[in-house]
């Protein structure tokens, strides 16, 4: 049982909440089902307090009390946190105005539209325009990577991508570059990712709250908000990561991960996240084939199934069941492997059945 001092009790906008000691105000608010806006905070990353959108006030601190970052400040017993005071809201609007003053307003064609934290917050806080009309950062869109498009004009410097690269993927390819207005969050010397130690896992893309980092293979093929999402299991190695297929009815448009998946906690490798192109490949077999006069030619299912049954029967009659061999597949499901060995043993009458476990 947790000792009393292991938890703290506080109020988030009059909602009482208990949480483990060391948790942030943000986590306490989440538990109290109060939404505190943020761009940089992420459940698997160390809080940085970079975006300043999560600022809240503590009741009882008197006039001139500071705005504190809910993501970085530990929750303490007796705190009365006010998440949406006039000052907090004004501060957030100011941050949003500053961000939008250096952000291209191309939501119309942005991949992230409908799935963009900045867009959502601009809407929620009714920030349509910015008072700040100064210099704008101008960068070419970097499409020189096999899977990742980098549009630095959209970067909000939340630093999530760099943290994911360092803390989750241990690659340390991405970090701050430059100072002040010229700051970029990018690879060393802004080199193309293939020239770095990048393993193309796409974890940076998965945590980007805006359209700065997006998946190249899915560009203009469908926005996340419009796609059907199916949680399933990755078809590559034996680790068994959970993946989410985003599909448009016929095609896999992109593969994403879920931060709460028990096995991989949102992480995926380059194959899991980007290796789905084979599914919609034009080279897929779309009809049965039967060899006629030395050539494989299209056939109906009826013909093909009859040919298979006849070929196996002929061999069994002539040489016995043990002259037939079955290779089942470790790429197929349990159900399919079960049926294959059942057919070999009970249907045909041989134990000549194996899969590629040894290879």
């Amino acid at each position, binding site marked *: 049982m947790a000792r009393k001092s292991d938890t703290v009790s506080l109020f988030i906008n009059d909602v009482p909440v208990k949480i483990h000691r060391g948790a942030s105000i943000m986590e306490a608010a989440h538990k109290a089902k109060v939404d505190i806006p943020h761009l940089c905070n992420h459940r698997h990353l160390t809080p940085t307090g970079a975006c300043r959108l999560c600022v809240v006030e503590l009741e009882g601190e008197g006039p001139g009390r500071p705005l504190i970052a809910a993501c970085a400040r530990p929750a303490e017993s007796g705190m009365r946190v006010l998440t949406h005071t006039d000052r907090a809201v004004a501060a957030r609007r100011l941050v949003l105005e500053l961000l939008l003053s250096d952000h291209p307003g191309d939501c119309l064609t942005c991949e992230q539209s409908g799935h963009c934290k900045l867009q959502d917050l601009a809407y929620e806080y009714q920030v349509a325009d910015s008072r700040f009309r100064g210099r704008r950062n101008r960068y070419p869109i970097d499409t020189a990577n096999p899977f990742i498009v980098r549009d630095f004009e959209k970067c909000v410097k939340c630093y999530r991508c760099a943290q994911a690269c360092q803390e989750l993927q241990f690659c340390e390819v991405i970090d701050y570059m430059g100072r002040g207005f010229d700051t970029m969050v990018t690879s060393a010397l802004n080199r193309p990712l293939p020239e770095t130690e990048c393993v193309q896992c796409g974890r940076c893309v998965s945590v980007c709250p805006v359209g700065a980092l997006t998946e190249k293979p899915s560009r203009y093929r469908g926005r996340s908000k419009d796609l059907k999402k199916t949680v*399933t299991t990755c078809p590559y190695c034996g680790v068994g990561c959970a993946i989410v297929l985003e599909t448009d009815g016929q095609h896999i448009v992109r593969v994403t991960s879920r931060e709460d998946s*028990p096995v991989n906690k949102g992480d995926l490798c380059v194959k899991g996240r980007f290796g789905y192109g084979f*599914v919609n490949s034009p080279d897929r077999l779309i009809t*049965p084939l039967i060899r006629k006069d030395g050539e494989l030619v299209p056939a109906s299912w009826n013909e093909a*199934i009859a040919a298979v049954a006849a070929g196996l029967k002929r061999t069994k009659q002539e040489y016995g069941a043990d002259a037939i061999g079955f290779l089942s597949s470790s790429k197929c499901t349990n159900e399919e492997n079960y049926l294959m060995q059942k057919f070999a043993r009970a249907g045909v009458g041989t134990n000549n059945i194996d899969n590629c476990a040894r290879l």
Partner: protein
Amino acid sequence: MAGLAAAFGSGAMTNSLEDIGEADVILVIGSNTTEAHPILGLNIIDSVKNKDARLIVAEPRRIPLVKYADMWLSQKPGTDVALINGLMHVILDIGLADKSFIKERTEGFAAVVAMVEKYTPDYVESITGIPAADIVRAAEIYAGADKATIIYAMGITQHTTGVDNVMTLANLAMMTGNIGQPGMGVNPLRGQNNVQGACDMGALPNVYPGYQSVADVGVRKSFEAAWGRKLPKKPGLTATEMTRAAGTPAAKGGIRAMYIMGENPILSEPDQAHIIAGLKGLDFLVVQDIFLTETARLADVVLPAATFAEKSGTFTSTERRVQPVRKAIQPPGEALSDWKIIGLVSSKFGYKMNYHSSAAIFEEIAAVTPAYGGISHHRIEVCGIHWPCPTPGHPGTPILHTETFARGKGKFHAIDYKPPAEVTDAKYPLILTTGRYLAQWHTGTMTRKVDGLNEIEPEARVDINPADAKKYGVKNKRSVTVTTRRGSVTAKARLTEDVPVGVIYMPFHYAEAAANAVTNPALDPVAKIPELKVAAAKISQK
């Protein structure tokens, strides 16, 4: 798997993937984890960087994990038994064996003590090439840990001594009491997504679903009752045995017809020329796949199958976790789910199969497979279940052998070192070993259809140590021909100290530079795994 089953009574991972984070010491041997099982690789690095775990990597090549390791033991390929026996020798010497665990939970230890007697650090150095002092230090680290785990993959099993290798690892874990609790264990990593499941389901020549022996009369009777047919008594042939028997006369035990589902043995099996000749010699070949693979091109009938995204069912991951596969889109054209195709073929053949869904098939699996008895499609919705899960109320079993071993007592096996089937000589002075790239997969059937992955890893490379390159006159980035007793392949040379002197390394993903055209088909006598990790080779450049 056979090795672990002999020692513990179960061939699967003893612990869960998450559980590896509990270990104080992680011994990774014969696994290039960050490339072949990348997300587990992250867990290992996380343990080292954030949880003070110590990492020992035993691997001939300098794999990426070496960067995070306390120790890198670069053994000569095929000398793992000598290395592990050496570690055990030292552990006995320094008195770190877990006497009470050995006494209470195991049998056969005396023979191991006698066997490892001669494996002094100096003797082991002479076999493995690892400095004696490193062997002592590694033994101290592993045996000194409160909780130590062993992780291995194909680098341990794809040898003629694969079963020996696994049994010695089991010896090492048992003699230090590293079984049955979080952060401990012996953990084989499955290569393919559902190797564990395919084996669990009895897609093996000697067992029915749930590893129930076909040689056991009682078991056979119960499956005959469940399936309504008389079942064959004789255990069958393994994949490598089948493909090698393919096309030979039936009177001599040859295979005359094959039904191959979702496999591409021309690239995955050793000694490619022999496999092709065998498949061509068959009277009848059926291939069921998603693409017209190298193997499918030889078929008499090709059946178009659905991918994982186009069907429902379950996969069982390497940690014995049964997880859902859900249909997201329709298969293209007339392609069908494999389970539907098998049902059609079987019914036409005269053995009726009328399953209306994969969930219905799973119900039958649960009924005949004790370890899956409590699992259903419904129960694995959220996060899967680790088998064994015998009853519907059972929570699953992330850690095996907690109280007793699956076979009762853990069994030690005294194993002597045997050299690989092929050793180097004047004509073939180098050791060829094979493996995988992060951005490609197995025989490339899936990944080579993905543009970006081909952009990252467009072609096979032959990794050669600069000293060997100099000796044999090989220049970097130029085509080099690798020749073994079975043939030659050509690929681009990459000079790198990631491979030790005397060893060259190739992936097996590429049909145009297929490592398995030249690898050794010599088999482990028990597990029948081919020795893909060691072949004697020579290199030449025009």
